[in-house]
């Protein structure tokens, strides 16, 4: 009976196509957006080679201009108003050498420079940081010379020397760029079955076919179970599609050229599947439970779309490093999968025991949601419809 319901729901959704394709479309589209984002981010990384700097008052600071030229920064006298050029984003960064620069410089007083930039513009922030470093180098070398001339050892005014030793591995740095990958793959588990869950639960209420269904001598749990299998299978199919697309995106020459020291190996992919299959079933059960509380397909779709934000919240918090994973999170459905996927993307193998425990807990939570959904079917108000 249970399988008769599952088969019927699958047959209907395959014929209907709309809900099914919506889900599967995400599976392809999500990872492709991520791939494009990676390529775009890669464009901003890497060393700045030579650059041209538009400046005002070039003739006032020949020493500085020569120093900059030595660091591959070609300085050119600006033709128009530099502040406007930066504000209108025609020029990422510009330098104004003030009129009193020569006098102050000669008199060993701080010589005024204006660095024009825009911190909300990635390219501007990057170039201005680069330029500031060169300007600091120039300032230090001039200062050192002045100290030597006055008979002071430059080291005396350098009480500290800081050596940076960054322990972030190359994998870690790439994982920052790839931190959004788990969100995309994980969302596939939630988006895949959304339309079908709305259809087989709320849609059945809306069409008025639910009463006929309930009139058959079939247990409420069997009805929900059959629908669960159908929705779960579609969600799983979406996860597989999303995973295959992700692997394909990672193989693309443009992404390969970023030289990410990580990737999804065949083994990783199997582990991702082991994480996401229970999650897809959990999502399907929760979606059915919520969709049975809606009277129309549209209402269910609205509620379920709002629910999509739930798995995104822990995802973004992890992605931007706002929170550190605590031990309990590893065993919480939805959050645990995030933690483990993030670890996988970093190239760390999750403990198989933890993975098994999380999958077990997730499946039990899904079963609980199914029982809750079957309780919904026992409520007499389930037969009430919007038009009657």
């Amino acid at each position, binding site marked *: 009976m249970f399988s008769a319901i599952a088969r019927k729901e699958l047959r209907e959704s395959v014929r209907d196509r709309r809900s099914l394709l919506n889900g599967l479309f995400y599976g392809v589209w999500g990872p492709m957006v991520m791939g494009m984002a990676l390529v775009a981010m890669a464009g901003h990384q890497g060393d700045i080679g030579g650059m041209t700097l538009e400046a005002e008052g070039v003739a006032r600071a020949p020493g500085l201009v020569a120093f900059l030229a030595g660091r591959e920064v070609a300085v050119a006298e600006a033709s128009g108003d530099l502040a406007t050029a930066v504000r209108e984003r025609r020029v990422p960064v510009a330098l104004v050498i003030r009129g009193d620069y020569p006098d102050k410089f000669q008199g060993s007083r701080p010589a005024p420079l204006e660095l024009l930039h825009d911190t909300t513009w990635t390219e501007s922030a990057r170039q201005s940081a680069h330029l500031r470093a060169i300007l600091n180098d120039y300032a230090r070398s001039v200062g050192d010379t002045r100290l030597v001339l006055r008979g002071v050892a430059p080291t005396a005014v350098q009480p500290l020397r800081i050596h940076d030793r960054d322990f972030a591995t190359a994998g870690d740095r790439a994982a920052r760029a790839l931190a959004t990958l788990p969100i995309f793959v994980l969302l596939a588990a939630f988006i895949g079955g959304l339309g079908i869950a709305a259809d087989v639960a709320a849609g*059945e209420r809306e069409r008025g076919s639910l009463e006929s269904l309930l009139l*058959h001598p079939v247990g409420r749990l069997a009805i929900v179970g059959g629908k669960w299998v159908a929705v779960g299978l579609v969600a799983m199919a979406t996860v597989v599609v999303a995973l295959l697309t992700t692997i394909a995106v990672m193989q693309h020459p443009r992404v390969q050229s970023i030289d990410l020291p990580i990737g999804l190996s065949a083994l990783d992919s199997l582990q991702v599947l082991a994480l996401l299959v229970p999650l897809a079933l959990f999502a399907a059960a929760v979606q059915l439970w919520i969709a049975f509380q809606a009277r129309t397909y549209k209402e269910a779709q609205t509620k379920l779309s709002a629910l999509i934000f739930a798995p995104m919240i822990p995802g973004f918090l992890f992605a931007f490093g706002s929170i550190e994973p605590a031990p309990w999170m590893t065993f919480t459905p939805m959050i645990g999968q995030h933690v483990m996927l993030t670890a996988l993307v970093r190239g760390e193998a999750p403990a198989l025991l933890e993975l098994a425990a999380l999958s077990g807990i997730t499946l039990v939570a899904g079963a609980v949601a199914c029982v809750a959904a079957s309780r919904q079917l026992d409520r007499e108000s389930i*037969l009430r419809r919007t038009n009657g």
Partner: protein
Amino acid sequence: MIRVQDIRKRYGATIAVDGVSLDVPDGVITGLLGPNGAGKTTTIRAITGLVRPDAGHVAVDGLDVARRPMPARARLGVVPETIGVYDHLTVREHIEYSARLQGLDNALTRIRTDDLLAQMGLTPLSGRRAAGLSMGERRRLALARAMVHQPRNLVFDEPTNGLDVMSAREVRREIKRLAAGGCAVLVSSHVMPEVAMLCDRVIVMARGTIVAAGTPTELMQQHGGATLEEAFVRVIGSEEGLN
């Protein structure tokens, strides 16, 4: 045989059914008559177990619906008032789905489906998607689904609602055939001539209670009307001021 004993059901402040007792004996067509809101659908849903009465009992072939809903439902064939179909399933698939849910095996599913398609005149439509069916075709399909497990007790809620004359005649003929075959049949309706033509016994409900019962002829004699409709108006009129 369906037996309803003193059932009561209240929704908030509204009393939908207030002490209804009725028998639907085998081989007889019992009509349930009453204006909208009289409690007919609540009574029918109590019989099918979709509504749990606050008090009273319902038994189908002696099986208590509240305590043993599954075996009781297996003995019932019900055509509800609203017939929702699955747009993307064919006529044949609808009947097969019901057969499966009634627990019929492959062979029996095929035999019963073929029989019912022929019996309901749906054979030419068997491969057609339900989305394109007319009201009459949908109702015949619902009838076929309700009869797939050959139940001995049948309940029809407004069976000819929205049907044209020819389709309504066919549905009535089928209902008569079932009763002649020894089934207990309960028909709810508010179409007077239909009840007069179809039913052996009539139970009139108003405001959640039974206000009159008997054969159509008895009702006309008791309440002094030339037609069942006049008798009905007198019974109901005294109850609720011609509502």
